[in-house]
């Protein structure tokens, strides 16, 4: 899966999405009101500045009133300082609100991810989910901090300017605004053109990047098949078409910016011509004309960076669509109403009654499985790869729901238990030991503060992990790096035993590691395992048959069906599947050690 999905670009503005997004602003209504007030104040303070210049010129400079000018200067200085602080405060407040919203969004996405069924993770690449938590939220952040605020403040400033101009001299104001329709037409056309080209650019850059990524991953194939030249030509074509699209945008921008500034100049010309006429006719003061000229420049500035805001809006809409569709994913079904107290320990009686299961449609992985496991029993499940052994774990912990049949725990259907209550009863040790970034101790307790250091050390000692942990540079506080790359497979296995023990479940399910382990640690692991399964129901998915010979029951799975059940000696006597598997195992070991 390449990380360069071609973005499907949606609308610039989507009412439904926007409404959902705005819901996140609700807890901060007060802050938003303050921010808006500050925004209005900043806008007002900015708008008042040309007005001060006007008064300074008209009332004092042209009349030679130095005292008055000093008064205006002082006022101006106060306004500048106030503006500085209000601006600072408003900007920070806006960012603060934006960050709080991002916090909630990220929290919600991550929270949702904790409760989705495993089937969801099977069909969704990890990279894509990470993008939701990181990049997508980031582009929404831009919407809140730059996009919306900027658009809002621009609208306020524009309206403010219009009102001020109208109130100062409505005739001149109207004359100056004659150019507005022209401006709107130009902007509208530009917006449409640029939107199309930007969409094109995004698609093309995505193509370039995924082509490049593909070529890097398959470089050996490219080189052996002497395809360098041809693939380069193809790349060049993609690259050139991207260039073309960009040249087009450059053209549009090169036309748009000068046009806007020309329209601005047109407005200036009208002000000079018409305003000058008004001065001649004594309908306008001199300072009034100067202020008008300043306002008209202020008016055109926000319009020129419209396209940038437009991009932010578009990206944010696309991101929010993806984020919300993730938030809308249905969580894992928790039908159970039977809630067990946290320290409850079940007896550990498990039955399968005619259980059928398929991950997809009717591709049955398990067919008509019936099995009884008594409390405290040690049961081993064996079978070739793909026989359905690991699926059984997934079903007991209800990671997946079975299609037909019933699974019970202590005589009650596992569907009746609340999911967390059920899982608290079961300790699972997976074959690929998953280690998180954190210390050794964290990896045993999974960072759960309820598990004390004594308990962690005790668990480690019990499963024979203490020896190697104490030899690590910082003992239990040694950081696990790169998913435990520095630890051996056996050491990781022991850690996962300690983890299971620290949580002290009534039922233990153990999926043996398939990867080869040296003999020394194999003995250690064997001993630890025996201790681990004492006093609890245990189910072992066995890959090495040597470890399960003293199991109470051995279940032989083959192609999703139970073919044989019995003790080691019984099954050997039967001389069926188990006997062959056993022989196969024996050969395998000989190959390894021979």
């Amino acid at each position, binding site marked *: 899966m390449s990380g360069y999905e071609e973005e499907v670009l949606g609308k610039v503005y989507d009412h439904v999405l926007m409404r959902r997004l705005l819901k996140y602003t609700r807890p901060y209504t007060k802050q938003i009101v303050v921010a808006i007030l500050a925004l209005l104040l900043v806008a007002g303070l900015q708008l008042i500045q040309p007005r001060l*210049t006007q008064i300074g*010129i008209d009332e004092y*400079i042209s009349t030679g009133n*130095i005292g008055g*000018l000093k008064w205006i200067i002082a006022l101006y200085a106060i306004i*500048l300082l106030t503006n500085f602080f209000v601006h*600072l405060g408003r*900007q*920070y407040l806006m960012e603060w609100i934006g*960050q*709080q919203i*991002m916090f909630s969004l990220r*929290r919600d996405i*991550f929270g949702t*991810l*904790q409760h989705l069924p495993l089937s969801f993770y099977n069909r969704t690449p990890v990279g894509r989910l*990470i993008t939701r*938590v990181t990049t997508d939220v980031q582009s929404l952040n831009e919407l809140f*901090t730059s996009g919306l605020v900027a658009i809002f403040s621009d609208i306020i400033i524009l309206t403010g300017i219009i009102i001020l101009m109208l109130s100062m001299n409505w005739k001149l104001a109207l004359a100056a605004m004659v150019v507005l329709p022209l401006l709107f037409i130009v902007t509208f056309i530009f917006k449409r053109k640029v939107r199309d080209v930007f969409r094109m650019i995004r698609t093309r850059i995505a193509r370039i990047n995924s*082509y490049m990524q593909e*070529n890097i991953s398959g*470089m*050996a*194939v*490219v*080189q*052996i*098949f*002497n395809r360098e030249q041809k693939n*380069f030509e193809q790349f060049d074509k993609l*690259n*050139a078409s991207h*260039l073309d699209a960009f*040249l087009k945008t*450059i053209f549009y*921008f*090169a036309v748009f910016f*000068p046009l806007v*500034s*020309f329209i*601005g*100049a047109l407005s200036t*010309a009208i002000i*000079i*011509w018409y305003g*000058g006429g008004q001065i*001649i006719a004594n309908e306008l003061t*001199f300072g009034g*004309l100067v202020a008008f*000229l300043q306002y008209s420049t202020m008016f055109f500035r926000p319009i020129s960076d419209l396209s940038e805001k437009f991009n932010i809006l578009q990206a944010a809409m696309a991101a929010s669509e993806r984020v919300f569709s993730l938030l809308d994913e249905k969580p894992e079904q928790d039908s159970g109403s039977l809630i067990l107290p946290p320290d409850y320990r079940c007896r550990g009686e498990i039955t399968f009654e005619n259980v059928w299961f398929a991950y997809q449609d009717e591709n049955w992985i398990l067919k008509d499985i019936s099995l009884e496991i008594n409390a405290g029993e040690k049961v081993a499940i064996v079978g070739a790869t793909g026989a359905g052994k690991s699926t059984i774990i997934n079903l007991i912990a209800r*990671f997946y729901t079975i299609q037909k049949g019933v699974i019970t725990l202590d005589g009650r259907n596992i569907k009746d238990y609340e999911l967390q209550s059920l*899982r*608290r009863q079961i*300790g699972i040790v997976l074959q690929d030991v*998953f280690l998180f970034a954190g210390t050794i101790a964290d990896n045993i307790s999974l960072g*759960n503060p309820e598990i004390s250091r004594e308990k962690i050390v005790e668990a480690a000692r019990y499963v024979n992990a203490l020896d190697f942990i104490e030899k690590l540079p910082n003992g239990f506080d040694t950081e696990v790096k790169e998913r435990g790359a520095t630890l051996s497979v056996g050491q990781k296995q022991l850690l996962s035993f300690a983890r299971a023990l620290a949580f002290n479940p009534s039922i233990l399910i153990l999926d043996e590691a398939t990867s080869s382990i040296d003999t020394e640690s194999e003995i250690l692991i064997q001993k630890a395992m025996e201790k681990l399964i004492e006093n609890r129901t245990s189910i072992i998915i066995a890959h090495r048959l040597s470890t399960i010979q003293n199991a109470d029951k051995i279940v032989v799975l083959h192609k999703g069906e139970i*073919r044989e059940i019995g003790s080691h000696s019984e099954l050997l006597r039967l001389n069926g599947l188990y006997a*062959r598997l056993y022989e*196969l195992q024996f*050969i395998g070991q000989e190959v390894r050690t021979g």
Partner: protein
Amino acid sequence: MSDDTRNISKIEQIKTIIPYLAKYKKKLFLGLFFVMMTNLVGAAMPLVIRNAVDHIEKHADMATLSWYSLGILAVALLEGIFLYAMRQTLIVVSRYVEYELRNDFFRHLQRMSLRFFHQHPTGDLMARATNDLNAVRSLVGPALMYFCNTSMLLLWTIGVMLYMSPGLTLWALLPLPITGFFVYKMIGRIHSIYRAVQEKYSDITTLTQENISGIRVVKSYIQEDFEKQRFALLNKDYIGQNLSMAKIRGLLWAGTGLFSGIGVLLVLWIGGLYVMEGQLTIGTLTAFFTLQTWLSWPMISLGWVLNMTEQGIVSMARLNEILQTPPEIADAPNVRRDITRVRGDIEFRNVSFAYDDNTPVLQDITFSLRAGETMAIVGHTGAGKSTLLNLIPRLLDIQEGEILIDGIPIRRLPLEVLRRHIGYVPQETFLFSDTIRENILFGAGNSSDGALEEVAKVARIYDDISEFDKGFETMLGERGINLSGGQKQRTAISRAIIRKPSILLLDDALSAVDTYTEEEILKRLRKEMAGTTSIIVSHRISTVKNADKIIVLENGQIRERGTHHSLLESNGIYAELHRKQLLEESLEEL
């Protein structure tokens, strides 16, 4: 590192950009000219407005006003044209440079050996091709343009100001250096905080990735709530960092606003006094205000440009790390240009290979194959089988020993000729996001449709393809369909044999194909590829038993060699493997 050496290496980096710019020097110089003109004309605008205002003060008539208005329009039109031309030259050049740089990067990667790709993960290379390339483009595009524009604007504005009133100019410019310095410093701070933000950001990414990859552990140990708390903590830290960044950013914008306001304030005050003293006309004062607003932009952009430049140079250095890595595997000067064909004799003499110095992957490998012979390699994962195959098309070069092809040392064969005669089916089938036709014809240029169908039949993929609506035109990959593992392998086999290679390398190429089909394919291959030297890596005894020679690799060394029968007789690793597989097969049949 001292400042001196850093400056030198910065200059070195900039030097590597110059050839790219030199290619477009005409456009660049034109661009500079347009920048000059834009600013020259732009600076005329306040002058016109000043004169207009001054005239109005002296009670001009409507005719004069009309002339001034037209003058403003004419100046604006001229300015617009130059502005257009400036963007169409300077910015366009930056896109051309980006294009060339990207092509060069891609072409350079094509010359790199497998070892290089071992050392540089795809993600790292892609980051350079995207983020760094972009930063360099910003350097040659916007940074260059704004730099020229800003300096011109500054020059002209100051010139016009000086012409109108030297005294007032000093006051108007007073905040300028302070602002530039302030912006530069602030952006520097932003960058250092930005790094901290990025670190937290990658922490969030890591936590999420771990959480999702380990979701089964999280769920089985009911750690969902705890994970949420862990995430919330990081999330809080992250927004904390973002907010300290927001503080600086706010200070930056509010600060520049304050400084440019102070400029206006000074002009109003001092200029006002000048007017009262009769040293200055009101029109000039008005023009100063206009010029002042113009100056606020260069003040901001100067700091910004400096920063973009710094980042661009750092990124160029990162690109150069790749672009200046010499290709490890290429034709030597003494290459035998006269050789255009490969017959298919292969000989390894005491070959050893290691990816890095301490861990040998292959040790002392010796064997020889005559053209047309078939050799099979068996052994455990990690025994060095794929590495051995990779040595033959020189995807990797050996450190010790010698490989001879047709009796000639492999390094003296032209790389292109060597590879043209090899058909290779790698272990991880790699197909491109293209049509099936293009994928099969990948290394065979313009083969006929007949040949295409023929190889598809030999690899027994023809029937599968016929079932697709678009047949050979079916798209694969991201924008198309996903083939099954077996279908992919069979497509890859077609791709290898359509070249009619002298040497065929199959690296576990039939592992996802059922034994029956495999047998069929091998039978057809033996017939069609009679003169071809084949090396087959496989775990399945059924695949290798008919080979002329079989070697058993373990830990990079040849442990057993012989034919199927002789190896069974010697009752070693191979014989064990054979027994195990027979059992497995019998299990399958139950």
